[in-house]
């Protein structure tokens, strides 16, 4: 961060602090003197009397940089805000940023470096499941702490990881319920990129459609990662005429998918689509005009109307430029540092075991997305929202569910 933006930040955060205090986000200012280092750090982490080191581990190069940049920015924003408020247990957070370079062994290597060499107190990082799977054994072996921001397929729970995004059932079930009711949909066409998250998600969606909604899946299709040709797939969809297309296409394919779908005449006037892989970040590449009228199921949209979110959006734009957009994962990444701060302060210690044990049950009431609660299974209890995309690249929230408990190993969906 340049000096300029930092200064910017400190003056700005003053204002924010009041709001956050009022919202109960801060449990009261803590001073280092009250918490002697020997006491709060019994496992030789990089904690001094005035500072604590944490790691950020995302891809800033390679194919995944497209997606992970937002997370890095959000995490840095949260950390800067926390520092402006006096840090954690009176200690300023120092960030060590590592580049996973979109390469899973590199993620494993860097996570080991952060934990073993730098002795960071926690790591905010990873985006793809593959990178998380690669670092997971390292975190478990070295007993580190990871805050993982992406909505993902579930089927995982680790004492060393907190999942700040939604697991698959949270994101899928309520969305399907809504669209089945709202559009009286009976037939669904499932399409996703060919890897574990879309496949697991589609498996859950299919069970839900067939068993709970009494609907029918008329087609299930997977696209090789990076493929940009959808002509044949679109024709198959036209032949089946589904009430709803349920989509989880990612990356460069996602852009091609929407552009070609529109060009083939399947725009939102003729076709309902609910996707679980389009956030405001993706809209930049796809173009709002190609998305207009389609729906996304996410827990967060930038357009959410509440004071916390409006502040968050404003702060984010101050720090990273007026053109930046905030998607679901970016917001979830923003929660990471705040949750960690709460964990450490509830435990009164930076020790990983103590902090991790202290976090479940914690309620973060002033998150930009609203109320969330940390479940004993290390995922967040949160709401699901359905957004209808507008031509300007923002979504209009048309549905908001009740709070949904996370269920990473859903019975009846495996």
């Amino acid at each position, binding site marked *: 961060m340049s000096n300029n933006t930092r200064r910017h930040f400190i003056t700005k955060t003053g204002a924010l602090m009041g709001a956050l205090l009022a919202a109960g986000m801060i449990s009261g200012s803590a001073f280092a003197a009250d918490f002697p280092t020997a006491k709060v750090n019994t496992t030789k982490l990089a904690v001094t009397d005035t500072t604590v080191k944490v790691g950020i581990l995302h891809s*800033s*190069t390679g194919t995944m940089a497209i997606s992970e940049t937002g997370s890095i920015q959000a995490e840095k924003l949260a950390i800067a805000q926390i520092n402006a408020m006096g840090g954690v247990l009176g200690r300023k957070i120092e960030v060590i940023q*590592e*580049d996973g*370079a979109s*390469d*899973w*062994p*590199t993620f*494993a*290597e860097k996570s*080991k*470096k952060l934990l*073993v*060499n730098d002795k960071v107190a926690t790591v905010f990082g990873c985006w*793809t*499941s*593959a990178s998380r*799977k*690669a670092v*997971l*054994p390292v975190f478990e*072996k070295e007993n580190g702490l990871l805050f993982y921001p992406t909505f993902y397929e579930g*089927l995982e729970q680790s004492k060393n990881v907190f999942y700040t995004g939604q697991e698959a059932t949270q994101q899928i079930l309520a969305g399907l319920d809504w669209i089945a009711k709202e559009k009286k949909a009976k037939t669904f066409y499932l399409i996703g990129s*060919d*890897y*574990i998250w879309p*496949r*697991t998600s589609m*498996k859950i969606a299919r069970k839900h459609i067939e068993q709970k909604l009494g609907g029918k899946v008329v087609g299930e299709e*997977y696209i*090789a*990662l990076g493929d940009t040709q959808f002509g044949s797939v679109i024709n198959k969809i036209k032949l089946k005429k589904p009430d709803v297309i349920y989509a989880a296409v990612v990356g460069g394919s996602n852009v091609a998918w929407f552009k070609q779908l529109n060009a083939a005449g399947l725009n939102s006037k003729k076709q309902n689509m609910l996707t679980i892989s389009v956030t405001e970040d993706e809209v930049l590449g796809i173009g709002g005009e190609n998305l207009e009228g389609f729906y996304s199921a996410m827990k967060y949209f930038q357009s959410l109307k509440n004071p916390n979110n409006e502040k968050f959006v404003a702060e984010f734009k101050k720090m990273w430029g007026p053109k930046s957009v905030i998607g679901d994962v970016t917001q979830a990444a923003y929660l990471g540092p705040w949750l960690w701060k709460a964990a450490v302060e509830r435990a009164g210690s930076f020790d990983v075991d103590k902090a991790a044990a202290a976090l479940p049950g914690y309620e973060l009431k002033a998150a930009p997305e609203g109320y969330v609660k940390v479940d004993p299974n290390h995922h967040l209890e949160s709401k699901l929202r359905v957004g209808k995309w507008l031509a300007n690249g923002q979504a209009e929230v048309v549905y908001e569910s009740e709070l949904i408990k996370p269920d990473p*190993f859903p019975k009846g969906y*495996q």
Partner: protein
Amino acid sequence: MSDTLNKMLGGRQGAIGLAILAVFIMIVLPLGLDPFRIGLIGKYLTYAFVAVSLVLLWGNGGILSLGQGIFFGLGGYGMAMFLKLEASDPVSTAIQSTPGIPDFMDWNQLTSLPWFWEPFKSLPLTILAILVIPAFFAYLIGFAMFKRRVGGVYFAIITQAIALILSILIVGQQGYTGGVNGITDLKTMLGWDIRTDSAKYVLYYVNAGLLIACILLSRYVLSSKFGMLLLAMRDKEERVRFSGYDVSNFKIFIFCLAAMISAIGGAMFTLQVGFMSPTFIGIVPSIEMVIFAAVGGRMSLIGAVYGTLLVNFGKTMFSETYPELWLFLMGGLFIAVVMFFPNGIAGVYEKYAKKVPFLRKLSEESPTPKTAQVAAVTAVEIKEAGVKA
């Protein structure tokens, strides 16, 4: 027998070079670095197997394979399948619908172990598979291509396409392969925890030992008549054919040998890093491994090891401090090596070592006749000088 030994060591100069390398990777690095860095070096050294295989295949044989990642991956997957089965005992997978099979199979509704996983329950069969399957696969590709005299650029492009096909297949068949996540969370080998620091050291030394054994084997091959023919084929394939040799058989053999060496590297990678993923089979790692060999010197087996270490060290260092600059540096390295140092580190050494009295003495005392390898390096240099002038 002493003749064989002499061929392996590559005469006095070769023996000294190898001894220095052995001391460097087996004594100097372990003493000078902490366990974390040693883990990294161990990982880099598994790539060095591929670089060594490319010295045989590309430097000496003139056959550029852009699909060596295929074989590295096959070796790595073989080992990963064994370790995964061991990690998936019925007790630790009790929460699954079908306990006793790898977790990703359970997620994909498989209810029994696929038949081709069965052999990987046994370590001896796994080791056999790691050596034989990549070699057999290389034989199939090599037979089809070299018998029809597909060479040069076409071979490079087709191997690249095969790498792409295989990586899409592995990602697509995730119930059988673990998909894009790969095979992860590997813990023990015959009950021995491979994640501890002491295990890392043991594996490091096994890895270094195997690497040196592969270099010795490659040296033997290169110093035999086979090696001379390989060079001859690279430069005048027609002439070799009209000297009564079936050129394609030689190419197939060296391709299979290179595949096998790469696969050993892959298997050691899995053991040391603790997982295997399809990213290694794709195009990018396959090309990056070529640059390791090129930086070290495409004709030099030992240079390949140094080249691999240097590039990877650079990658780690730079991406820690200047992540944005790393790609510029890597790209620049490709260009610079090709344009200015076609013989890599080994070429620079050959050129300047002669000026250092001590080193000159070493090489002058090396027994004549000089090896084909040295002769070829100098000749290439002469040619390069011609091009530049």
